[in-house]
């Protein structure tokens, strides 16, 4: 590739990253047809690859792409209308045996027999029409529709990555380790369900907004975690999902700058993602937070995450939500020069606050561990034992692993090793089993 061609290739790639959602979101509003919108957007980007090298990159790539995609949509709708008209025409001709239909302009769509506007007519009417509620960014409509609670969670995730994120079906299928036809079918079914169930293409009203925004953020965090914690597969695949989740969270924050939980989620993702390179060693083994080489943490991501939290600190209004608290906890880790310098006292306080908002057993586990690490190993262990007795986390390997860590802190190496061996039985992946075995060996060596 020549230097110029590479530059144009980059320009298209950048436009794809920055403009895909806008082009698709606008076309969906104008045509009401998700597949048409995606197909025409993809075709517009293909045209850009062909034409930008010769014609130069347009001053406003988004406007260029939207116009090209919109014209493609008009062509396709017109062709579709003509085909439908031909079918109706043939049927009409059969009935009237000529005569009454003469004089109609060739190729012009016939009205539908029942006089109702056909779907194609309505799509034409909407093309070029401005949105009914003026200033709303179409991408925000798309965000809320992709993450609608009436869609199955896995459909929400797939649709968000495909339609909003612009990932190909093949890329999404690879990321979630399912065959491509399965993923294609999942996406088609989700779009059918949007149409059939009557899921609207709009931002929910104020009364429903907090709950619905929570649903959007949950989908984005799920995508991030699928990338962050995926075991098996290559690091590149995992990284792509985490990158995509961060990109989409940035978009939501830009579109809804007043929503503090959205900004908090972005901070949380950045702070967790900053550890991505340090989480796995050269041999591909998982490295625990305490053992990570902190010089390998991404300083730029940490700085962005901390900056977001500082900006939230400047507008202290209302209670801190769960993403805010988790981001603050991640910030404590990020700020510690070594594991021993970690402010576990503050982390324990933040977990107290989080547990009050979210009474889930996993939060209770982390809260107990934080208190244990803050110098109250016995109290933490008692809390973990209560949690174990409740049965809420049966089969969850991190519960015996946490008990093992606190037992080790209390100097009870044998009991600690026994709990870690229980964790070994339950651990879901080879990488985690190997990490637990190494920890058991360490305890054996220390005792």
């Amino acid at each position, binding site marked *: 590739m020549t230097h110029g061609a590479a530059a144009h290739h980059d320009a298209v790639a950048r436009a794809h990253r920055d403009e895909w959602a806008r082009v698709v979101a606008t076309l969906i509003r104008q045509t009401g047809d998700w*597949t048409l919108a995606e197909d025409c957007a993809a075709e517009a980007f293909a045209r850009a690859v062909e034409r930008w090298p010769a014609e130069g990159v347009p001053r406003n790539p988004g406007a260029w792409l939207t116009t090209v995609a919109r014209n493609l949509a008009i062509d396709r709708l017109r062709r579709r209308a003509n085909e439908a008209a031909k079918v109706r025409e043939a049927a009409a001709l059969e009935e009237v045996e000529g005569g009454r239909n003469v004089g109609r302009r060739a190729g012009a769509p016939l009205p539908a027999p029942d006089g109702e506007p056909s779907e194609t007519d309505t799509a034409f009417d909407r093309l070029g029409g401005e949105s009914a509620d003026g200033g709303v960014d179409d991408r925000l409509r798309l965000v809320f529709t992709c993450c*609608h609670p*009436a869609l199955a969670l896995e459909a929400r995730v797939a649709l968000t990555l495909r339609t909003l994120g612009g990932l190909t079906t093949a890329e999404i299928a690879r990321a979630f380790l399912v065959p491509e036809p399965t993923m*294609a*079918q999942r996406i*088609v079914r989700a779009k*059918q369900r949007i149409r*059939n*169930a*009557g*899921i*609207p293409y*709009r931002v*929910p009203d104020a*009364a*429903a907004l907090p709950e619905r925004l929570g649903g959007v953020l949950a989908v984005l965090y799920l995508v991030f975690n699928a990338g962050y914690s995926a075991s098996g597969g290559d690091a590149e695949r995992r990284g792509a999902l985490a990158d995509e989740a961060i990109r989409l969270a940035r978009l939501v924050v830009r579109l809804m700058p007043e929503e503090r939980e959205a900004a908090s989620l972005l901070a949380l993702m950045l702070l967790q993602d900053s550890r991505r390179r340090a989480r796995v060693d050269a041999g591909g083994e998982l490295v625990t937070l305490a053992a990570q080489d902190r010089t390998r943490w991404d300083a730029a991501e940490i700085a962005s995450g901390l900056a977001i939290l500082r900006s939230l600190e400047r507008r202290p209004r209302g209670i801190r939500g769960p993403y805010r608290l988790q981001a603050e906890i991640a910030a404590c880790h990020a700020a510690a020069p070594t594991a021993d310098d970690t402010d576990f006292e503050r982390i324990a306080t933040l977990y107290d606050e989080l547990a009050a908002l979210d009474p889930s057993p996993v939060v209770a586990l982390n809260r107990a561990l934080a208190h244990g690490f803050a110098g109250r190993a016995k109290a933490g262990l008692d809390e973990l034992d209560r949690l174990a007795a409740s049965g809420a986390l049966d089969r969850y390997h991190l519960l015996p692993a946490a008990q093992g860590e606190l037992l080790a802190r209390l100097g009870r190496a044998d009991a600690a090793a026994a709990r870690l061996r229980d964790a070994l039985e339950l651990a879901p992946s080879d990488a985690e089993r190997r990490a637990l075995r190494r920890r058991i060996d360490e305890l054996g060596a220390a005792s």
Partner: protein
Amino acid sequence: MEYLLIVATDPDAEPFVPEEDNVGDWVDDLESRGIRIRGQRLRPPTDATLVRVRDGELLVTDGPFTESKEWMAGYDILEVESLDEAIEIASRHPMARFGRIELRPAWPMDVHEPGAERHARERAEETAALG
């Protein structure tokens, strides 16, 4: 869009409190806005009649009596803009708390289209959509 709102009992719901059954307000609000086309409470399954034709023979029985504790207790037909509006309305029905509500979108069809043609057309559309 037209939705059938199916009001059902649900053993996991909170116990019914007659004093809090404000279904009249709910109906008045919807009718004043022209949203509720019609609706009815239904007699329990013990009063149901089952009709079947098998091998050309008409079979009429009482029932069906299922073991299920979730049964249809009433219905409403709504004409609304979208699913979100239907959800908002369903959420205010007292039986959303004391039972549960299922929303089913109407699926309009041309009843005079010959059945075989409709079947073939819809099969072809489904195949085309799934690529």
